[in-house]
């Protein structure tokens, strides 16, 4: 026989067992301890609505034992109580209740302030429901998107009738938490469900069994959590047919193990054939009493059926006697089970999540306690656009002077009274102060009681409504909610496989995956400085800017004199926003046909495109902007032998005159058409070869093969970081801050201030009139520095190192860093931890730029 282990104890599992039925059959009565008072809690609703039976299954907490099917080999642990659920030392809290009234910790631990962190730790250890595992195996939940005309939530009679009717001429998805009919004890209801399910299937409805609706959102849309998928449904209409449960009864002792709601007790007896006790009393104010009693008797329980109000339940480990106010007067009963059927509470949390008219209810959720025929009619009416208006459950919840209103959060009637007397006089405020409705069941049992309490106390209509319903209805795992968003979406260049094959360490650089190093950073740097090197720079943003207004656009948005760039020449540019702050930088190359080729930083391409398109629209210009980032690959060939290398692979004129710095030309390299731009980011003679992405591999291979004559090496981001730093070039975002204007970065030279107009010009003019309070400076160190380290002057922090490296070419450790003015002057010597930093002009290497001109 299959079995599971509950707290290490082996329990047999019968066919169709839930964890709860297997455990109850084996004699388990206490399934959890309450959150504050550590009172015993047994099976209560039996329908997955309350939180009494939350257990940890195979290491994952928060599973509902009453609805989770038992599986062979399952490891189940009850979650609360110390040292165990059955013998809980913290049950002493129940006797100290009067010392811990509602809201006590708001007051008791407010002073002295140092006490709260200690108290918080103690409280957290003593409360809670289960412990999240520190490590879990990653589980990937797929996300599926569905568009449908009608989404029906609920697989009972009303839901199936709605689906069957709507599916005749519309697309329909029906989601039901359990298998259809699996939790129904009434044979007539089972037959009706089978008939309607067949009709719905025949009409073409998609029936998703085992899919829990966890929320309804605007649209309307809904999230359905299935066994191995998260389904996001966009529907034109949503029909909520989630039924009703027996109303939660509030009276002293109402939370004792042995007190049941009717359907849960009937399921235990009729479906699992487990008697809920030897002597049960069914207190019924609905027409279901006799049916419940019959169901319980099938499992061998002696049942007494009475009508009336339960005044009190008594007992220790479980209920042993009750008092009921019947029409004949007070009657006491000895029993080991009390079954309540006091009225119907619509399971309407989903329905209350939205006010959209396209979301309607059907069946018990709007007509609590309706008959099978009425439920079917209600479902069919909802499908044809004539849904029933929600009707309030009748009667309102019955409450006595004490008893637990919110069993999840241990909030009693006494607590509500006390909170009210303290001045918390609306249902929403009561909720926040007492935390009633805020437990795992999300107020499924108690939200009506809270509203009723406010109403009975005379609260104004606006202050006595039901509290807001929010997703999720059930507690999903975070991994399920994440769905498909479980990874970093990375862009790869066409040379990715080449880098991996060469042993590169691939790093995430913004949205790209790029080589960090091929293994020897120092040699990669030497190759670029002394021989020749290549780098995959396909990540650069690249744009073609064409059309008769191309120059007008570029002149307007960039602070350079675009008209002064002759065809065949290129210019470094900054992109400034309206506030004059540096957004991005790049190169602008003027093409012979009057169009322009623009590059941006690797991480700035998307923003650059959006920004340019915005200005094209705002200025109403005739400009064609083509983002070529995906289309073009780019390889930077750098080093004193860069021109020599290209000459071996190209028949084009590559002389300084034909391809000057900063300039560009269309050439063919190893048979690959390239736009070669003489650029200078690494501070050596270098050519960016922009080419069709599909030919990146053959160009890369040809360059490496021909470059062997100069002992060529590819270099990665680590080497680039040093090479550009030696030239004093900034990395945007790493060396800059969002409010940097060019002068702060020492890039004032890149702004043509004589231009009449460009984006940010007026802001720069205003800022030019102000003294600089902060600027980026070059730094030399007398020891190895650390990036991010504060720069201090006489013990006061006045700056921070943003980039640093020990540089062979610059003869020692160098860096860039922020510096604040002190007394109107920028200090020149600072401390950076154990080392001294001296402000130094940049570039640190080749200050006259001779090398990059070749």
């Amino acid at each position: 026989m299959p079995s599971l282990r509950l707290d290490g104890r082996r329990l047999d599992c019968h066919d169709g067992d839930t964890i709860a039925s297997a455990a109850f059959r084996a004699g388990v009565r206490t399934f959890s301890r309450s959150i504050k008072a550590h009172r015993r809690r047994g099976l209560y609703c039996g329908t997955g609505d309350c939180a009494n039976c939350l257990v940890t299954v195979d290491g994952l907490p928060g599973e509902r034992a009453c609805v989770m099917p038992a599986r062979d080999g399952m490891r189940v642990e009850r979650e609360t109580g110390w040292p165990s659920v059955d013998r809980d030392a913290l049950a002493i809290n129940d006797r100290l209740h009067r010392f811990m009234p509602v809201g006590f910790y708001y007051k008791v631990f407010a002073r002295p302030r140092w006490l709260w962190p200690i108290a918080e730790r103690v409280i957290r250890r003593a409360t809670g429901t289960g412990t999240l595992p520190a490590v879990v195996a990653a589980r990937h939940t797929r996300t599926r998107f569905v568009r449908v005309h009608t989404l029906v939530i609920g697989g009972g009679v009303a839901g199936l009738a709605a689906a069957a009717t709507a599916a005749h001429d519309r697309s329909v998805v029906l989601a039901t938490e359990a298998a259809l009919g699996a939790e129904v004890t009434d044979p007539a209801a089972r037959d009706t469900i089978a008939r309607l399910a067949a009709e719905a299937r025949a009409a073409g409805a998609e029936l998703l069994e085992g899919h829990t609706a966890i929320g309804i959102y605007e649209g309307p849309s809904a999230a359905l959590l299935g066994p191995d998928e998260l389904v996001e449904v966009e529907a034109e209409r949503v029909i909520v047919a989630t039924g009703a449960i027996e109303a939660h009864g509030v009276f002293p002792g109402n939370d004792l193990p042995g007190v049941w709601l009717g359907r849960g007790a009937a399921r235990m007896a009729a479906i699992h054939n487990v008697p809920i006790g030897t002597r049960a009393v069914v207190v019924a104010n609905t027409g279901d009493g006799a049916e419940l009693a019959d169901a319980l008797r099938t499992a061998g329980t002696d049942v007494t059926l009475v009508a009336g109000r339960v005044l009190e339940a008594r007992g220790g480990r479980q209920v042993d006697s009750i008092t009921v106010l019947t029409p004949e007067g007070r009657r006491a009963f000895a029993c080991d089970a009390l079954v309540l059927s006091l009225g119907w509470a619509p399971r309407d949390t989903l329905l209350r999540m939205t006010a959209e008219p396209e979301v309607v209810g059907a069946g018990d959720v709007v007509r609590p306690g309706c008959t099978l025929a009425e439920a079917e009619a209600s479902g069919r009416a909802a499908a044809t656009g004539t849904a029933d208006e929600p009707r309030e459950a009748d009667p309102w919840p019955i409450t006595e002077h004490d008893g637990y209103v919110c069993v999840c959060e241990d909030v009693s009637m006494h607590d509500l009274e006390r909170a009210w007397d303290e001045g918390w006089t609306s249902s929403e405020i009561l909720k926040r102060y007492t935390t009633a409705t805020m437990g795992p069941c999300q107020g499924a049992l108690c939200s009506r009681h809270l509203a009723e309490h406010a109403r009975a106390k005379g609260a104004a209509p606006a202050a006595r409504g039901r509290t807001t319903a929010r997703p999720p209805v059930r507690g999903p795992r975070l991994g399920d909610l994440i769905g498909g968003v479980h990874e970093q979406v990375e862009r790869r260049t066409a040379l990715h496989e080449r880098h991996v094959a060469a042993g590169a360490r691939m790093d995430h650089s913004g949205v790209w995956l790029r080589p960090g190093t091929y293994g020897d950073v120092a040699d990669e740097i030497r190759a670029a400085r002394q021989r020749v090197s290549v780098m995959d720079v396909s990540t650069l943003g690249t744009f073609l800017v064409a059309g008769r207004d191309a120059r007008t656009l570029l002149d307007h948005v960039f602070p350079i004199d675009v008209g002064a760039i002759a065809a065949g020449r290129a210019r470094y540019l900054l992109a400034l926003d309206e506030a004059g702050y540096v957004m991005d930088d790049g190169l602008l190359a003027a093409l012979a046909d009057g169009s322009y080729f623009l590059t941006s930083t690797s991480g700035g391409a998307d923003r650059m495109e959006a920004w340019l398109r915005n200005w094209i629209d705002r200025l109403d210009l005739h400009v064609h902007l083509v983002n070529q980032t995906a289309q073009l690959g780019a390889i930077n060939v750098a080093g004193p032998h860069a021109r020599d290398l290209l000459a071996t692979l190209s028949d084009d004129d590559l002389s300084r005159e034909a391809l000057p710095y900063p300039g560009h030309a269309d050439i063919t390299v190893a048979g690959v058409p390239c736009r070669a731009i003489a650029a200078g980011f690494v501070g050596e003679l270098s050519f960016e070869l922009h080419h069709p992405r599909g030919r990146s591999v053959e160009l890369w291979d040809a360059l490496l093969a021909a470059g062997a004559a100069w002992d060529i090496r590819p270099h990665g981001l680590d080497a680039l970081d040093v090479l550009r730093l030696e030239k004093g070039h900034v990395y945007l975002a790493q060396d800059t801050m969002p409010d940097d204007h060019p002068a702060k970065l020492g890039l004032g030279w890149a702004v043509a201030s004589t231009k009449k107009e460009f984006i940010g010009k007026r802001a720069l003019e205003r800022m030019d009139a102000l003294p600089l309070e902060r600027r980026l400076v070059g730094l030399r160190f007398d020891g190895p520095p650390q990036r991010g380290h504060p720069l201090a002057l006489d013990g006061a922090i006045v700056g921070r190192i943003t980039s640093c490296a020990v540089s062979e070419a610059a003869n020692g450790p160098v860096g860039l860093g922020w510096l604040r003015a002190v007394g109107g002057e920028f200090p020149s010597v600072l401390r950076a931890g154990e080392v001294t930093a001296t402000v130094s002009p940049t570039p640190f290497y080749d200050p006259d730029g001779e090398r990059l001109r070749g």
Partner: protein
Amino acid sequence: MADVHDRPVGAIVCAASPEALDRLVAPGHGARMLRVAPDETMAVVAPAFTDDVRRELEDRIAALDADALVLDVSDGWLGLALTGPDADHALSYLSALEPPVADGYVQGDVARVAAKVMREPDGLLLLVPAYWSEHVRARAIEDAGAKARRP
């Protein structure tokens, strides 16, 4: 279960005034014209006809808008075919986009990246920026349960 496989495509961008694009007659060679923006259309064609279609587009649009731009951007796109009777169902695991009707296309979020989806006789064709091709291919296989197949 759908099959997923690379399907090389030729892609030519034609940028011109909206009025010119409204009047532009589609070129031959089975080119599919995707109006991706009011002032931009993209012709998708079998790779063998890319140059022919580009030339045709250049000739036709020049007569309508002298300032128009025609550019072969084939290298920027990966064609990823989802084929078989379950192709639409497979797409639902990748995107909230409604599968396009015959000869139609939609564009939007597919596997969390910007892509275009075209209806093809044997299923769906996803047009994905080339730098995301590995990501979308992997998601199609893992999430959509598609079976990778060589073209």
